[in-house]
């Protein structure tokens, strides 16, 4: 019992360390570009940022939670060309289940979030994190993968909020006409990515 508790404690600490590193120090959008188009779509509706990030987190965590043991069980039985298809198929199944169950068990919630489900399920962030976890399968475990997924989605929410705040400030007459809108947003995100480069550690997504 003592050993089991000690094991759980160690794994929980690993999950938390990955979560903190990924969410605060190595922002997934700024270090890899995963979810950058998604971020620029969501940033236009600041009220939905955290709700969307929460839904994104659910899909991401469930995908890696199902993919990890499945990957271990399949071992070398599945050609590596088909593993990404397996990841996407898992997300598709989760999306279909969400669309079948939510209208029945929580119709009000479905009315609110139904339109966000396709974007939250099918994007480079959810699939990218699942593929990264698969790529690092020999030096990771389920807890670190879950920490990575949660941290990535939190970092997505943080950077989207930061960009939304920046857009409000960039919307002023001093901005040259040529740079108004998307050009200034892209340059702003680039400068944020440059700033975050200083925190990049030995851990690499890619």
């Amino acid at each position, binding site marked *: 019992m003592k050993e089991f508790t000690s094991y759980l404690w160690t794994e929980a600490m690993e999950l938390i360390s990955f979560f903190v590193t990924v969410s605060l120090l190595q922002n997934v959008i*700024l*270090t*890899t*570009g*995963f*979810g*950058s*188009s*998604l971020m*620029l*779509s969501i940033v236009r509706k600041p009220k939905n940022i955290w709700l969307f990030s929460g839904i994104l987190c659910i899909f991401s965590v469930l995908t890696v939670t199902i993919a990890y043991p499945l990957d271990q069980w399949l071992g070398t039985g599945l050609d*590596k*060309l*088909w593993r*990404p*298809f397996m*990841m*996407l*198929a898992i*997300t*598709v199944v989760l*999306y*279909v289940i969400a*669309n079948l169950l939510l209208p029945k068990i929580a119709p009000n919630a479905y009315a609110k979030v*139904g339109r966000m*489900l*396709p*974007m939250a*399920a*099918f*994007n*480079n962030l*959810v*699939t*990218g994190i699942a*593929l*990264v976890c698969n*790529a690092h399968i020999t030096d990771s475990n389920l807890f670190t993968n879950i920490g990575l997924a949660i941290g990535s989605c939190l970092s997505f929410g943080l950077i989207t909020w930061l960009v939304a705040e920046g857009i409000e400030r960039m919307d002023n007459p001093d901005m040259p*006409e*040529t*740079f*108004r*809108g*998307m*050009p*200034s*947003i*892209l*340059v*702003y*995100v*680039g*400068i944020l*990515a*440059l700033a975050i*480069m200083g925190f990049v550690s030995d851990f690499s997504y*890619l």
Partner: protein
Amino acid sequence: MNKKNNAQRHLWNSAQLFVENAITNNIVLIQAMGLCPIIAAGTSLKNGVALAICSAVVMIPLSLFTAFSGKLPKWLRPALYILLASLLLVGTAYVMQNYVSTQLFADLHLFIPLMAVNMVYTRSIGYAAVVNPVATILDALGSALGFGLVICFISALREIAGTGTLWGVTVDILPITMKATDEPFVAFIMLGFMAATLQWTRHRISALFQRKEDDR
């Protein structure tokens, strides 16, 4: 006569859409779609061309599929779209690994599957479901061309600046090389300046046409 006029008008509108997606309302620089492969993998011209071809190989058949999938429930279409896209990309990855270049596949093995969830396609789902197949194909072609132009240009610049080569061939354009061009921030900033250039060009052309209208 009316039918012929209508058909000509539809074709003209579709052609306009092609040009819009490819250049004037570029899918990457104006609509901000498909950024991830450009930022993460667009570090050499070979990568750029490979991903542009992957994009076209997936977009065109899937747009046709979506144009004819009107009877399916709306919520189910994205799921089927993604599954078909990923199947097409498995085939593309197989061809790349076995018949094109093992090294290229090793560089892009993570990004080829990610093309299945590229927002360039997911944007097309909503569009393709409400228009005719000809417009759908031209929309897809325009988007693929627009994405291809941007990724190839950015990749070429990053390769020249990063390694002093273009398509693996040494080119002596810059006196120094900067390894940092592989980093995402360079791609974001380059995209920002490209978007600004496109915006400036659009404003100048609009102003020119406006002046001609006023002169009349």
